[in-house]
């Protein structure tokens, strides 16, 4: 998008708007004290990232990100966070002890990344800006076409990997534990009256005398 003078084009405005929210959300994910808040900020981060992808004309990926990550993964994550009783004080223990080492390590990592990713090797001038697509171009259709023609082989292998995941998950978790209580519907239906109820004939008894009436004993 050519920048005309000082004024910002609308796309640039959208980009900076989303980027600012994304940075803020990302920062809050790691600084929020409450894990539920952190998870919610992560949802915001995903959603904003999806907005950024939209400006790249990758609308299918953007929608998938929202549907899969926000809709499924993060909700599951929230459930887990809410169900687990995480002791935050314990997690935070030793923060100040580790800081003297952690800080130089983090700074060093940042510097290394800056050297590698800096303008010299991966700068904007090294890669041409992708050309804008004509109107009516469908990102979803293009992806689908590639996925089912050129990339059909990897696509099929990925399907097999998912099958392995299903088989492995069932093989590793399904078992009959001795202490599990489970119902057998077939046996429930087949039950007869005589299995459950026993009619006993007893002679009527006289009311007890007052001496045996103690607290806690069921009254007749």
């Amino acid at each position, binding site marked *: 998008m050519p920048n005309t003078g000082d004024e910002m084009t609308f796309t640039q405005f959208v980009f900076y708007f989303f980027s600012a929210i994304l940075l803020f959300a990302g920062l809050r994910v790691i600084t929020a004290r409450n894990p539920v808040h952190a998870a919610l900020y992560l949802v915001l981060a995903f959603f904003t990232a999806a907005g950024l992808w939209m400006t790249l004309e990758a609308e299918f990926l953007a929608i998938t990100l929202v549907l899969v990550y926000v809709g499924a993964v993060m909700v599951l994550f929230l459930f887990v966070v809410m169900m687990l009783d995480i002791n935050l004080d314990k997690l935070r223990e030793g923060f100040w002890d580790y800081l003297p080492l952690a800080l130089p390590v983090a700074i060093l990592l940042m510097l290394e990344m800056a050297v*590698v990713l800096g303008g010299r*090797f*991966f700068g904007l001038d*090294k890669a041409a800006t992708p050309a804008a697509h004509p109107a009516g171009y469908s990102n979803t259709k293009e992806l689908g076409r590639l996925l089912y*023609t*050129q*990339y*059909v*082989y*990897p696509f099929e*292998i*990925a399907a*097999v*990997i998912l*099958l*392995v*995941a299903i*088989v*492995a998950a*069932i*093989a*590793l978790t399904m*078992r009959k534990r001795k202490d599990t209580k489970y119902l057998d519907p077939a046996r429930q239906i087949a039950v007869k009256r005589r299995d459950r109820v026993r009619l006993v004939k007893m002679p009527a008894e006289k009311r007890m005398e007052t001496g045996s009436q103690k607290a806690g004993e069921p009254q007749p």
Partner: protein
Amino acid sequence: MNFNMTDLIPMLPEIFLLAMLSLILIVDVMLKDGQRFVTYVLSLLTLAGCAWLTFRGLNTEPVYVLSSMFVDDAMSDVLKLALYLAVAIMLVYSRGYLQLRGLYKGEFYVLTLFAALGMMVMISASHFITLYLGLELLSLSLYAMVALNRDSPVATEAAMKYFVLGAIASGMLLYGMSMIYGSTGSLLLSDVSVALQEGIGQKIPLVFGVVFIVAGLAFKLGAVPFHMWVPDVYQGAPTPVTLFISSAPKLAAFAFSIRLLVQGLEVLHTDWRDMLILLSVLSMAIGNITAIAQTNLKRMLAYSTISHMGFLLLGILAGSQNGYSASMFYSVVYALMSLGGFGMILLLSRQGFESEELDDLKGLNARSPWAAFLMLLLLFSMAGIPPTVGFYAKLSVLQAVVEADLIWLAVVAVLFSLIGAFYYLRIVKLMYFDEPLQNAPIEASSDMRMALSVNGLAILALGILPGPLMNICAIAIQASL
């Protein structure tokens, strides 16, 4: 893109395996526990069918299909045939052991075949994505197999370690691939190679990419300093799974290295050669020296694997056709030796007894002279003593290294092999000159005894006549590269 049905002919073995897998999955659900033999026989028949299809499709010219993502060349055919054999032998060895330990289930066979499919994808891959997906298919099946014995805390711990480290390795590999992609603009190995020859892409991101790829590769091979998972996984996993991990995947790992480093990144040979030299010297040193201190046979064989992987890398780093074919020969021979070594542990174990300590081998000669003799052959071969085939495997790799003017490296390799010979020969001493600690008879089915005998004698036979197999490897490499 045009699509012809005939495009699918080169990948018939893969299609057949996947179809049979689906069939076995369904058949196995219908079976009662007592009928598991059907799954076993079906799995073996599937491998036989794949072997027949691969054998029929043997060709010398590489054929690329499905947008060049799949390649069928002589190297892939030979390695796949060796792979079927290794998987089939593993299934035969493990049946008795699984029956005694309540692991005789359909999932074991299904996951084994899935892993085999993953290895076939790796062996025939000519694209970064298919290489990676094949590797993931293999790894995921293996993680699950290591954890299959759910009641054993050691196995669960091993699976956890394997999974976490494997995931990191996959991440590294992907990161490296993405850097190469960013620099050359292609994911297709042949295009990457052409782009590199034309000098496209800057040096530094490319070398960074190679570093990550080599690190990921070393993780998967189990080369030092990325070897930490090997001993724990080998010891913790059920022995049949250990046997599996240590045999067939080494063939796939060899193909993986050749495809990535030679077919894709050969131009950067000088860069990855130095990294491989370091990996290989460290692997041979730490593998052989640490193995001496082990008292557990499975752990000892794990360190022995590490040192053998060092040797395997020697052939690849030599960077010549002779080196590659020597390495290929080494990987096939190593798979055979490893099958025999762990097969012996399976033979000697029985209900409630694992036979995985070195002391359990004491006086084996008095208990069963034939088993002791087979073990002797396997150990001689691992140590590289003639007339067993291990000697020729080491010799051909060393020749390639000397041809590449790396004489110091050959000397170092020989020195560490000598150190390694000590712990192999120590077992021979235990078997022949010590009193047995136990006198329980060896219980094993006749098919297992038969297969193990053939396995052991093959080591000797190939040692006396190594020519044919070496020629096959040389021809396969020549026709493929």
